[in-house]
């Protein structure tokens, strides 16, 4: 991935205002009807994807004739005028904090990446947007901003990378106060690296890929790689309890964090030392992690680092069916030998992956591909419509990686798994980064979709996957969706006691009067199905406003009351008024 500068205070210059990611990177069907990914940033960039069109048309029943293009530019006059508290703005200026009420910047920070948010922008619909954007430069700036916000009763909404998929960044419609988006992007420095204790102290506005790149330059990494790491921020990870793809080695955000500093209306909260573990009552970090911007702004974080791994190796395994695949992952988890990452895609996603194969350059490779396919389907008797694939990533020193690899492949063999090469594995991970771009392509052709996730005990993984996928199909049918939806899942994380499951769901909405409503109902029913099957409300996306209705059920009335009383104490005037979570 090529570097960029969203640390600029105007990310909208290089990023889409109504879609995912960089403006220069997008999927399109060229004049010949071939799929293509533009730009230069990704491995897939500039490549022709010959099978994409057929897959796309067959999967969604769409035709390239029927387009639904987005509004090309933001109509600035549609943006509501800002509701500013003049003395607040004045005092900010005096304090030297950068601020702007430029409409483009406000619109850019008025949303995350939920389907309904992007869909509205594509149609040029602008809802409630923040009235002002402020850019603190450091912890002390934040302290000042929060003080002023309390003084003038202004609503603050922290903004990191803007990759939320839980409606967390939507301004609450009922909010009548001036809403100020507190953009942390300028607080992006690594303050120190402690090589003796292997920790790094960073300002919380830093974006994932920048943090990783800068650490790499010193020979370290955090190893925290959520799928959104190109754009999401450290503070955002903390505020949502993020999970990284390589958590098997490095841990999730709660395992990585050693110290957090957060500014709240009550003052600054932090621990007095950096001891690796403490018995000092409930861990106050756990009030902060997952608070989703309702309590304050995370300004600085100390987190663990590791020396860069000597060796990395991708891999993939083909299983005759999803069930065998899940059993294999379960066994890997039981033996606690999961590689840095192990993911199992179902058949639909496997086929989807194939649709994104770039044009093969030589006859020899295409011959080889044919041979592989023949071996798997004919010789090994795998049913092409049942087989599924696991992608693997190993990290460590070379010798150990190879040993580890053998162990995992041996387990896989017991479940009928066949090693299917490094290339398939690597492509699987690359897909993660480009899949969000694909939604924009879909939306150009009447296809809308979204992903959502859960975590579930091992013995329910299969049942949950089957039932949720089926529920989606049935609900779509019942609600008049003309063509069967794309309803697919993958197991993306393994734990001792369960797994994280990720669903993709998309459908062709031609002929529907209110596609968004249909979409939202189906997603709602899918979540109900997840909960009925013993899945959690969220594994790492968070609750935001999208899943609030289930919070009481999820954590019990007393649990909710506990969280509410913390909010009540920390922020009695609801200065951090994004109304997420509670």
């Amino acid at each position, binding site marked *: 991935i090529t570097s960029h500068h969203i640390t600029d205070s105007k990310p909208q210059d290089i990023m889409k205002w109504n879609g995912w990611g960089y403006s220069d990177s997008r999927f399109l069907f060229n004049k010949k009807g071939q799929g293509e990914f533009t730009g230069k940033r990704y491995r897939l960039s500039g490549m022709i994807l010959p099978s994409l069109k057929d897959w796309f048309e067959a999967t969604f029943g769409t035709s390239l004739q029927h387009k639904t293009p987005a509004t090309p530019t933001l109509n600035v006059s549609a943006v509501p005028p800002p509701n500013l508290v003049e003395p607040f703005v004045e005092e900010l200026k005096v304090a030297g904090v950068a601020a702007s009420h430029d409409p483009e910047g406000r619109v850019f920070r008025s949303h995350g990446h939920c389907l309904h948010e992007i869909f509205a922008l594509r149609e040029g619909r602008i809802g409630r947007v923040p009235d002002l954007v402020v850019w603190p430069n450091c912890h002390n700036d934040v302290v000042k901003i929060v003080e002023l916000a309390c003084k003038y009763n202004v609503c603050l909404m922290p903004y990191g990378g803007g990759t939320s998929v839980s409606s967390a960044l939507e301004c609450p419609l009922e909010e009548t106060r001036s809403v100020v988006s507190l953009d942390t992007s300028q607080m992006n420095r690594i303050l120190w690296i402690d090589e003796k204790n292997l920790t790094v102290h960073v300002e919380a506005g830093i974006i994932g890929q920048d943090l990783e790149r800068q650490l790499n330059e010193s020979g370290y990494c955090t190893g925290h790689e959520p799928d959104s790491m190109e754009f999401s921020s450290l503070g955002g990870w903390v505020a949502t309890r993020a999970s990284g793809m390589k958590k098997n080695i490095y841990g999730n955000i709660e395992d990585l964090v050693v110290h957090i500093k957060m500014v709240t209306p009550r003052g600054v909260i932090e621990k007095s030392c950096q001891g690796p573990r403490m018995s000092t009552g409930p861990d106050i970090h756990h009030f902060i992690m997952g608070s989703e911007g309702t309590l304050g702004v995370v300004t600085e974080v100390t987190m663990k680092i590791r020396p860069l791994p000597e060796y990395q190796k991708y891999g993939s395994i083909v299983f005759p069916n999803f069930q065998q695949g899940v059993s294999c992952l379960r066994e890997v988890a039981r033996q606690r030998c999961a590689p840095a990452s192990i993911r199992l895609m179902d058949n639909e996603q496997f086929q989807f992956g194939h649709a994104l194969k770039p044009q093969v350059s030589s006859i020899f490779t295409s011959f080889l591909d044919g041979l592989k396919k023949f071996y798997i389907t004919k010789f090994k008797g795998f049913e092409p419509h049942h087989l599924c694939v696991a992608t693997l990533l190993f990290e460590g020193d070379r010798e150990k990686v190879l040993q580890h690899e053998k162990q995992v492949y041996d387990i896989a063999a017991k479940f009928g798994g066949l090693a299917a090469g490094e290339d398939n594995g690597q492509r699987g991970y690359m897909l993660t980064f480009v899949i969000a771009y694909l939604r924009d392509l879909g939306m150009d052709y009447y296809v809308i979709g979204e992903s959502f996730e859960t975590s579930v005990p091992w*013995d*329910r993984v299969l*049942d*949950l996957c*089957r*039932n949720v996928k*089926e529920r989606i199909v049935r609900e779509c049918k019942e609600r008049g969706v003309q063509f069967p939806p794309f309803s697919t899942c993958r197991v993306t994380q393994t734990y001792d006691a369960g797994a994280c499951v990720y669903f993709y769901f998309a459908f062709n909405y031609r002929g529907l009067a209110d596609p968004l409503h249909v979409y939202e109902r189906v997603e709602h029913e899918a979540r109900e199905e997840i909960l*009925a099957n*013993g899945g959690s409300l969220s594994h790492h996306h968070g609750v935001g406003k999208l899943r609030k209705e289930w919070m009481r059920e999820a954590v019990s009335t007393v649990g909710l009351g506990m969280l509410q009383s913390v909010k009540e104490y920390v922020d009695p005037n609801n200065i951090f008024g994004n109304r997420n979570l509670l």
Partner: protein
Amino acid sequence: MQEFSMTKPSFVDILEERRRGSDISHALRAFSPPPGCGAPPPSPSALNKMVLESQHLRYVVLEVRGHSEGGEAAALLDEMSQNLQVTFIRLLGFALSKIFTRLFRRIQVNEDGLARLQQATQEHPVILMPNHRSYVDFLVLSYIMFTYDLSIPVIAAGIPLMGMSLIGEIFRRSGAFFIRRAIGSDKLYWAVLSEYVRTIVRTGFAPVEFYVEGLRSRTLKSLTPKMGMMHMVLEPFLKGEVYDLSLVPVSISYDRVLEESLLAHELLGVPKPRETTRGLLKARRVLEQDYGSMHVYFGNPVSVRELAKGRIGRGQYNLVPRDLPGRPSEESQAFASAAAHRVVRLQERGTVLSPWSLTALLVLQRPDGTRWDLLARDTLWLRGIALQLGARLDWPADLPDLEVMSSSMALHRSVVRCEEGCVWLVEEAGPEPVTQEEGVFRRASAVLMCASYRNQALHVFTRPAMVAVAMGTVPGHSQEDIYRHFCFLRDLFANEFVFVPGCGPQDFEEGCSGLQQCGAVSATDHELKPTEEERDTIVFLSAILEPFIETYQVTGDNCTLLYFSLRNCLSFFPSHFREIFPNSTRYTLPGGYLPPTPTCCKLQCPNIYFRQSHCRIHPGSCSPTPLCGPQVATSSPI
């Protein structure tokens, strides 16, 4: 009701082709049912292995026996498990073709229902839930499924069938699995059985067939469902192991039931002969008679998921391992019970009635004989009412009505005779002289048979009749009062007729709209008034319930059971005779409330004493003399 289509089903006689074609080639036809929703069928031994290795069974073995040795469980499973083999289905197909063509004029099957069934088998595991009226039921569904190229069901059967030498094994290889009768608290047996059933449902390779009524209805009236098997088949859905289940109610009805006189004698206290192969061979002579037509109506598949919507939280298993043995929660029990009752109701609604059922109803009201022309006239009148109430009649349109009725009656010459324009109930022949008691006995068998055929049609009239009775006991016409009395009757007859728990208002509504259909009542916002023109209908409908009310109408003082007149005995046919005896248990209604008015339904509460039980009448306990001696009834869970 969406689950029940009122469109006229298209019945096809499957025997017609058998009579024209060769039974051998039918038996050897290419049989390739479309694959079900699940994986390909596991071999019986693989299936058993899955059961034995299940976590659930391991928990129970450890809990019950204190060790993890599974030998005992394996033995139980061996006794129980089916061993479905297509060869035996073919063999059976051949034999049944021979037998059925001899016994029946026609076996009428609704092909639209089969088409829906086929659709359902491809989507979700299917549970076939036929009613149970005769031994013949047992394999007829398999025979039909074979004929129509559908997966052969796995059938829950009572263990006595297994005991029949050779036949037991043939049944086993035709897909039957065997369940002991009195399981009681044998935890291990329960565990093996339930895991076995659940595994079949989960894998979904074949439909599961079981009789939700638990046993053959000796009176041809629907029985209140037994919950054991019901819980077992529902559990995989409630635990999220399958996306959905389709319950397919199947209504089997006969113009004439093979074991009619056997059943009547059983009701009179003659013990049921044991099921033996020898007995079966001896019973060959029943093959020589004419049994008319058999109707098999496959109802609309009922989605359990739809039923469960808003009624039960599936999250209840989220906090415990799903394999953990445990009683179903109250919520699940209520749900299963409602679902089972609903299925029985759908069976009733799908039942095709023969004209004789209507005639029998009338004959019973005139036990001392009646003129044929009057009987025919009234039967026609009753047909009108029955059709208005939504009954499904097998009344050939192309024949004169009189011929239809007389030929339908002629089939039952063992019950009624028509001599010199008069219709009489047949008395059993026997040596003279007879004591009074013997005389009753001889007549009783015909009465009971007659009552049984009447019972087949009873469900059509129950609700309107209850409203009619309730109307008669209420001063004034207030709907609210009538409803209160209706509810009293509904509670009173909760074990007599099948009512879906919690559906009182719907039942009342059905009764009222039935009466309105017949023009017997006019309804305003709050009132329900009988119309002058159709007074007869109200009187007639009330009369249908009369014998049942009388049965429950026990008045008296202290602890003596009162009168049990001859007349009462003869018109006595509630399906499960309640043991009615002087007992210290004071009678309270289900729900614990007392009748709304002291005179309601002539029940002189609170002086009524009797005990309710769900148990079948004990052979010998039905004599004209009062019953005595406490019988502790253990309700069979199956």
